[in-house]
């Protein structure tokens, strides 16, 4: 077994110049029609299954939908009142704080561990390909599997984690049921889930750093530690930026792990914005779609802000 992270998927575009420099023709060229025909299913798909659900979401957030009105479709227009309610509510600051902690602690730890492992695997050694492939496992498992497994590992009375801690003389920790620990628990599980993604991307980034730079540094007398800080870190910066931002965007929207492990509780102790939105809409017996959509839209705004930063950095990287 050997993992190749070189360009399996995206080979470098052929160096041939694009044929036929664009002549100014007034009518659409036949290939334009063909291109449109090839794109038509995608455009229809994006309009029906992306734009329309998003439109419905915005519409929900601007009306006061009760469960009845949701089916009948005759809700009262309330403008931005839902947004004012959500932002002014007691839960908002806590959810925002939880989202920030969950997201930033998760990606910082995922990145640090992923980078450490990528550096560790950089030079080939016996079984390195196999071992690196095994690191993908947490990422491939269905989230319900990982979530429920972590629930059982962290179970207060019968979990292996507490059992190990007790053997070191540390008393029982109520990981999932104590408000002090619930957020930490879901962060731990989420770090575990995200390490493979960081490892794979950072590893392929490391592989693109030419060996002779390390050789030159070694000749100049740089030890491994100095090589890491003076060669690896600066040259990996663009890949790092993209890894972190993608991680950020993915982590902001996480619902499943948290919901499966703690349902955002106890109380609101591990409720993030995404989990809050999910709970309002689907988590209780009484769906409240207007606030749920409102929270979801606020989340989109945050994600898009970071997404804009991602696109900006990617463009800058392409130019350099």
């Amino acid at each position: 077994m050997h993992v190749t992270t070189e360009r399996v998927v995206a080979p470098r575009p052929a160096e041939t110049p694009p044929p036929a420099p664009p002549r100014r023709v007034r009518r659409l060229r036949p290939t334009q029609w063909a291109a449109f025909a090839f794109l038509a299913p995608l455009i229809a798909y994006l309009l029906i299954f992306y734009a329309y659900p998003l439109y419905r979401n915005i519409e929900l957030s601007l009306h006061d939908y009760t469960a009845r009105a949701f089916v009948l479709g005759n809700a009262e227009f309330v403008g931005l009142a839902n947004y004012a309610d959500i932002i002014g509510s007691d839960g908002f600051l806590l959810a925002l704080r939880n989202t920030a902690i969950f997201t930033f602690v998760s990606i910082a730890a995922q990145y640090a561990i992923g980078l450490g492992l990528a550096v560790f695997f950089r030079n080939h050694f016996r079984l390195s390909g196999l071992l690196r492939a095994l690191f993908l496992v947490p990422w491939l498992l269905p989230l319900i599997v990982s979530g429920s497994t972590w629930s059982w590992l962290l179970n207060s009375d019968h979990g292996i984690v507490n059992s190990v801690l007790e053997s070191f003389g540390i008393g029982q920790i109520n990981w999932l049921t104590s408000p002090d620990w619930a957020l930490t628990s879901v962060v731990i599980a989420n770090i575990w889930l995200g390490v493979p993604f960081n490892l794979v991307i950072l590893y392929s980034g490391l592989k693109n750093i030419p060996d002779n730079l390390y050789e030159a540094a070694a000749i100049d007398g740089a030890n491994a530690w100095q090589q890491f800080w003076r060669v690896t870190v600066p040259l990996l910066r663009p890949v790092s930026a993209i890894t972190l931002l993608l991680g950020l965007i993915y982590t902001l929207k996480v619902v499943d792990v948290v919901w499966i492990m703690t349902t955002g509780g106890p109380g609101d102790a591990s409720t993030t914005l995404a989990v809050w939105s999910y709970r309002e809409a689907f988590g209780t017996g009484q769906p409240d779609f207007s606030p749920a959509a409102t929270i979801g839209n606020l989340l989109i705004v945050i994600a898009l802000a970071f997404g804009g930063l991602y696109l900006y950095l990617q463009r800058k990287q392409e130019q350099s």
Partner: protein
Amino acid sequence: MTSRRTWWKTVLGLVFVAFMLFPVYWIVNVSLTQTKDLRADPPHLFPWNPTFDGYVNVFQDQMPALGTSLLIGLGCVALTLAISAPAGYALAKLRPRGGGTLNFMLLVAQMIPSVVMAIGFYAIYVRLGWLNSVWGLIVADSTIAVPFGVLVFRAFMSGIPEELIQAAKIDGASVWRTFTSVVLPVSRNAVLTVSLFAFLWAWSDFVFASTLDRNGDAVPVTLGIYAYIGNNTTEWNSIMATAAIASVPAAVLLVVAQRYVAGGVTAGAIKD
């Protein structure tokens, strides 16, 4: 040549992997543990006295759910390929007007939280009567994979030599014919990568299943596990046995197609 000097790295690597995969080992361990031993203190580190009751329960209770998940996964692969492969080709080779805008929209689409999509789909499906249907879930799950698919196909197909396409044209092939008989066969790797991820995401999906298919007759296996946890929290061996079975596709794919997995992860993130 360096194997002598680096054996310690192999040992260290094995330790890392053992640490990382401990939860996975625990799934297998718990799934084989007798119900009466589940609450042993300290927990049994190895199922010395294994039972297969958990797995028997899985095959009694979860077979329909596994079938549903398979159907949803395959449906999602078909839908994703049908939409993303031609679009990827158009964006890579046919230089359509507004291609840049479309690319940008695909990136933005990937940033939308699934809970937002779930609310939107729920609102639409209520009216259409698509709730609790396999079809509805296939469509919803495909939204995770389609933008990714287009980006992978576009990246891969822009690497196909222009001469190959010109040659087909000179032989009198139409654009569609060129696409099906030249471009698609050459793009086998991209097709595999996209299929693999589309299947895995649909198979693993929890958010759409738990919102759009809550009361369906045919629920996927992720909901089967969730219902298990809700109903009988004592039988963790059955839950973990279901979890182990539900992880089989991931394991198979890792063994059979890992290079596509690694390639797919980087494809979305890095362009060089």
